[in-house]
């Protein structure tokens, strides 16, 4: 009897946030058109102002101040086939969306060997927009996560072969989440989040043609707070304040670039992402002090990147490829973010328009591996196949001083 009562009293909240979560691939690695064009294999060279993201030490080998402004347009196409629990593989298409993470960097030589810079970019972000009446509406209908990173950075060229750099990041973000709630209500969580992190890097040229780079970006614990709204408002639902703490994972790059000729440079990077920091997502509601925890159990993972650049007159032709391994195991895959391992194929060009003004344009095609999950956890109970691909267009304007 006691058991029955306990279940009864906990069920309301369980229903609301059974699987509210941020999911696997909400990391964004697209922070400069040149890097994007080369499969993101850029941490060794870090040869433009986007070094503030990829490897701050790269700034040390840059002799001039510069300004770089740009954005990436992301156009994903995502479908779910299922749920298999209903003995169906009917397709649900995610509503079309278009995201435009931005990047802006300013770099200035403070004195000989010492460069200072500041960057603003979106290192984590996510958007999900399913039809409001789809069969997974009790899991999620809409998510919009944005994080803005403001990163003052210093880099010091120790010698002609060695540079080091470091930065501090202030992270400010917003999270919007919508889904169906008990009693045919609809819940919207609207939260703001803040946190601090740091990064450091080293760039070394053991041979004239060889560059090796390492960079590390700390995990960032963001404290989020905001409001939970229900429409219609049902008195038993925890309307009002809601808070959470989310740890954005640490990430590190190890890159090797080799200049095969005056025209051709190739680079290969290994990127590590410490997703195991993301084990649970817990929300606390102010109204009744209740908490809800959704297990995520992500694993540390990696991305392998190769890319290069070919100089052709005033043009730089670029291409690259990466493989991104999902941090999410089958039981924890849900439509909040239908994560899967993916291939990325990219190409792009760079041109100097004047002595000071340059433009970089890139295109990246991402093909997610088809992912069929048949063992989702009970709180999700939503098996099926996710198929996704995305087109990304990136443009940066540079002005060197």
């Amino acid at each position, binding site marked *: 009897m006691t058991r029955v009562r306990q279940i009864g009293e906990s069920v309301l909240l369980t229903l609301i946030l059974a*699987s509210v979560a941020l999911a696997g691939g909400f990391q964004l690695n697209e922070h400069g058109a040149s890097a994007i064009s080369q499969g993101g294999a850029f941490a060794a060279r870090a040869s433009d102002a986007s070094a503030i993201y990829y490897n701050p030490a790269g700034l040390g080998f840059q002799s001039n101040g510069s300004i770089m402004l740009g954005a990436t347009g992301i156009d994903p196409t995502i479908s779910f*086939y299922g749920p298999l629990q209903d*003995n169906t593989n009917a397709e649900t298409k995610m509503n079309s969306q278009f995201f435009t993470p931005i990047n802006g960097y300013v770099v200035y030589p403070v004195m000989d060997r010492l460069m200072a810079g500041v960057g603003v970019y979106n290192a984590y972000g996510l958007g999900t927009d399913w039809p409001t009446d789809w069969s997974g509406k009790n899991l999620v209908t809409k998510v919009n996560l944005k994080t803005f990173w403001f990163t003052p950075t210093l880099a010091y060229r120790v010698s002609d072969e060695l540079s080091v750099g470091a930065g501090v990041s202030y992270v400010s973000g917003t999270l919007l989440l919508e889904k169906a709630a*008990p009693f045919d209500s609809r819940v919207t969580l609207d939260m703001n989040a803040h946190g601090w992190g740091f990064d450091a890097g080293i760039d070394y040229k053991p041979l004239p043609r060889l560059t090796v780079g390492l960079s590390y970006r700390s995990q960032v614990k963001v404290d989020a707070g905001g409001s939970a709204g229900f429409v219609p408002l049902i008195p038993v639902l925890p309307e009002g304040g809601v808070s959470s703490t989310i740890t954005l994972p640490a990430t590190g790059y190890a890159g090797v670039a080799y200049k095969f000729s005056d025209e051709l440079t190739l680079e290969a990077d290994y990127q590590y992402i410490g997703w195991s920091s993301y084990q649970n997502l817990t929300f606390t509601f102010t109204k009744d002090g209740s908490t809800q925890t959704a297990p995520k159990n992500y694993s540390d993972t990696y991305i392998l990147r190769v890319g290069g650049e070919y100089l052709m007159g005033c043009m730089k032709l670029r291409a690259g490829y990466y493989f991104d391994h999902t941090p999410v195991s089958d039981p924890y895959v849900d439509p909040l973010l239908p994560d899967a391992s993916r291939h990325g194929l990219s*190409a792009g060009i760079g041109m100097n328009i004047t002595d000071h003004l340059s433009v970089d344009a890139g295109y990246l095609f991402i093909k997610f591996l088809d992912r069929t999950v048949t063992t989702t956890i009970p709180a999700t*109970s*939503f098996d099926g196949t996710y198929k996704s691909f995305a*087109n990304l267009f990136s443009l940066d304007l540079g002005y060197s001083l």
Partner: protein
Amino acid sequence: MNVTKYGIVALAVAIALLYGGCKNTAPSGPIAGLGGATVGKYVSIGNSLTAGYQSNGLFASAQAYSYPNLIAGQLARAGSSVGTFQQPLYSDPGTPDPTTGKASRYELISWVGPVIGPRGLTPGSPINTTLPRPYDNLGIPGAVIFDFLDSTDITVKAGPPRSNPLFLLVMRSQAAFGKTLFQQTFALHPDLVTFWLGNNDVLGFAASGGVSPNAPTPTPIFTALYAQAIGTLRGALPNVKIVVGNIPYVTAIPFFTTLGPKIMSKLPTGLALQYQKHGTTGIADGATNFTESNPPLICLTGAPYAPLLGQPTGKWYTDNGYPALPAGIDTTKPFGLDPRNPWPDALVLDPTEQATATASVQAFNSSIATVAAANHAVVVDINGFLGRVLVSGYETAGISFTSAYVSGGMFSLDGIHPTDQGSGVIANQFILAMNAGYGWSIPLVDIASLPALTVPLSKGSNGYPVIPEGAFGELKMLWGAR
């Protein structure tokens, strides 16, 4: 620069190809179908659970989500040509309470309390009355296994002592289609029959606290009637697919599990609830503080009386028209706490009565399994399923169901009959059993597409749901004397 131009053009072409040429295509997966079988006519036989009865009333907006109607919809998706599934619809707010004449349907009347009960609305009326054939849904609220082959004139069954006018609503012309549920079924020549009778053969006993009737249908009689019912169906329709639902333990439903814990939390320290055991009318012969391993279950019909615990009251005797108090009863004593003013037998299923009900369910289910096997019928283990819901809940696509009253999402405001979504969950148990038994591939009902229970329960000032006395007249009609 020519090379550069070519490079740009090549890149543009590559992008255009990638961008335009890529689309997601369906993976191989379940393909809806009936494996070559033809199901042109589906008929459901049962009681209130089959009729789509909900929140203490029969009304069209709940009948739309009766599990047979949902099954019929899914059969159509699997390619069956069942057409419109015809039901004896009764317009909202539904059927009347036999005593008050007002709609018996429970609604949320007030957040304070909260108060749940009939709103005193003018009842609805039958709205599908010109069908020139029997209804496809032959679920009759209150029906017992005996009724399937009972050839008593239905106007007689609608009158005293049974007083169940719903026989008249559900069964079309006796002259044209016959007096028995079997004859009306046969007249439709179904390819598929779902048969879920027998619940009331034990639930009537249990829901009345073991008072009216004072015993479940005897097992030998139940077994004989069940074998006769399914055997007759099989004999008359040799090729019909018969799917039978077994009987859940009555203790799995919130009608029995809601009030006990609340009363337990209200008991003064050191005192126990004094109650009457089976058949007792006088001084309490049972006492509980609900900490024993198998405590008595308090019926939801006790909701109007639970708040009176400890008060000197004879309200229950007044409400039930006792001309004089039974011997030994003293209503000046604290109600429920003094043995001389005990919690009445009719509002409690004591451990002995629970054992009686459980033994009957086990025996009935054993008979159902045996009879089904002998007649090539598929069994839907509703008992096993609801038992699992009671223990660990049921989750699908982010929706959680438990056996809790109202907040559990599975059972409607009467604590016995499923909600719209709960009805979908039941329908899916039938579909899963059919798919397994016949090799069919019927898609399941998308539970998220069904209305949730939109009448939530908040914790009231005293923690009890306030259900006014007299709200259970419909219940007495369903399971009263026969």
